[in-house]
């Protein structure tokens, strides 16, 4: 019955950009062990070879370097890691994540373990774009803290995953293409105060 209610997709666009309400149900098909009620997809093209981009991303210890809200990631083993992430209004949320699928230089998929405060899952694809470098596409499924209200609050404090994902991918691009992350800070002290 539920299947009959799903709309048919009549184009080739990413499901995360669909205006149909049931798109998230269908998008879950592409994420193993999907969890989360909101979906966002972001893409960035990085002018570096796919092997370099993948390697930087696969070493989770690198992620806090360009993911603004990730305070710390403890790598537990090859597949499991513990995430400490800033939440709106000064708090933090934590969860354990597990890699559910991995194809070297091509794909990383993950899901949060049972009991996560903010259940989330997703996939990051890496495409060799020839002379343009590497296309990185991140699709993230998540349950915002406190549901819809929580999402609104998160947006106000700019900790909303859809906004954050776009910024984080841009910072990854800056880091890999230029060796640094652009900042308007006039000096080190301002830089520290900005909390980057």
């Amino acid at each position: 019955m539920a299947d009959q209610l799903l709309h048919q997709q009549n184009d080739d666009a990413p499901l995360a950009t669909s205006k149909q309400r049931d798109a998230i149900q269908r998008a879950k098909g592409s994420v193993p062990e999907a969890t989360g009620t909101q979906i966002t997809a972001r893409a960035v093209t990085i002018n570096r070879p796919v092997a370099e981009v993948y390697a930087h991303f696969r070493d989770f210890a690198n992620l806090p370097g360009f993911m603004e809200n990730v305070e710390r990631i403890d790598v537990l083993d090859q597949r499991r890691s513990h995430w400490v992430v800033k939440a709106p209004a000064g708090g933090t949320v934590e969860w354990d994540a597990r890699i559910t699928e991995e194809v070297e230089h091509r794909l990383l998929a993950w899901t949060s373990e049972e009991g996560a405060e903010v259940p989330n899952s997703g996939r990051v694809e890496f495409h060799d774009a020839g002379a343009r470098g590497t296309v990185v596409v991140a699709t993230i499924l998540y349950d915002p803290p406190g549901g819809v209200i929580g999402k609104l609050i998160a947006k106000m404090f700019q900790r909303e995953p859809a906004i954050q994902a776009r910024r984080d991918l841009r910072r990854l691009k800056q880091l890999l293409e230029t060796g640094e992350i652009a900042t308007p800070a006039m000096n080190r002290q301002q830089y520290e105060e900005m909390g980057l």
Partner: protein
Amino acid sequence: MKAIAWHGKHDVRVDTVDDPGIVNPRDCVIKVTSTAICGSDLHLYDGYIPTMQSGDVLGHEFMGEVVEIGPKSTLKKGQRVVVPFTISCGSCYHCSKHQYSACDNGLPADNQDIAQELYGQPMAGLFGYSHMTGGYAGGQAEYVRVPFSDVGPIVIPDGIEDDKVLFLSDILPTGWMAAENADIEPGDTVAVWGCGPVGLFAVQSAFLMGAERVIAIDHFPNRLALAKRFGAETINFEETAVYEALMVMTGGIGPDAVIDSVGLEAHGFYVDNVLDQIKASTFLGTDRAHANRQAIIACRKGGRVSMPAVYGGFVDKWPLGAFMEKGLTLKTGQTHVQHYMPALLQAILEDKIDTEFLISHRMPLSEGPKGYKMFHDQQNEVTKIVLKPGLD
């Protein structure tokens, strides 16, 4: 240090702010020796540009001496450099194609959201020009932190005075690119709206590119006289019906190429302008585009429209029908300064381009607020103000 800071519409002040320092490996810090007030700074002064914050340090035309370098800078302490107003990384796809003002990485990620929403994709960072363009502190200051100092600043040979090369930072490349975007062919007649610094450099550039005639349009007699000095014919739009004059002056054809170097605060008492102004002041629209409309109507069939002028938002009643029916081509964009600097420095050193004629006033940095008011109120007499921190 002392710096000129924006505090609101028609309110700029000399503030004491933090000294800049090295933050990223490719940075340098320069001690400013000359910094100009740009016509586009007046858009900030008039409160037309959103995302300004009280205390923002202004200025994007500046040069000076390198006093600090990051580990990845290629500059040396003591070198004199002119700094491009665009902050571009030199390593992304766009920079590799010399489209520096479209750089992917010059804008801090947190400052990209507004341009992403407003323009579809974010552009390069700019010095001293609102938070939408990066929130970078500008050059109307004693010192400036310059990111990507290995690809931006150009080193000036010893013995060449500041006033000769300062305009490499913005208005000279902007005027040059405006003429280049007009795809001038030998024998062409080019009409230039606005004889501010960019328009005057576009006049010089158009002749260097082979234009037979350049017709310059403004309402300030002194600015028209400067255009005439470089060989342009002039139209004073307060005394003359511009479209009618252009049609007669071009034998009923219209100019082969038109250059709009006026932008979002076009002056003059025209119905469309008055409507635009009402809308701008009530936030229903932002840009007053009378000169641009007139340029499109005057341009000959199949002609080229070059638009170096700054527009920020939306415009109403744009003559899209005329644009389509006549098969015009429009080229525009913020200037790819880094691309043009080396050749234009050479042209200055060989005396092919005159730059110093433009400077009407030199004053200490501390008189910056007075400079803004003068530039705003007396556009006939004041063509360019250069602030010199060393005169304080």
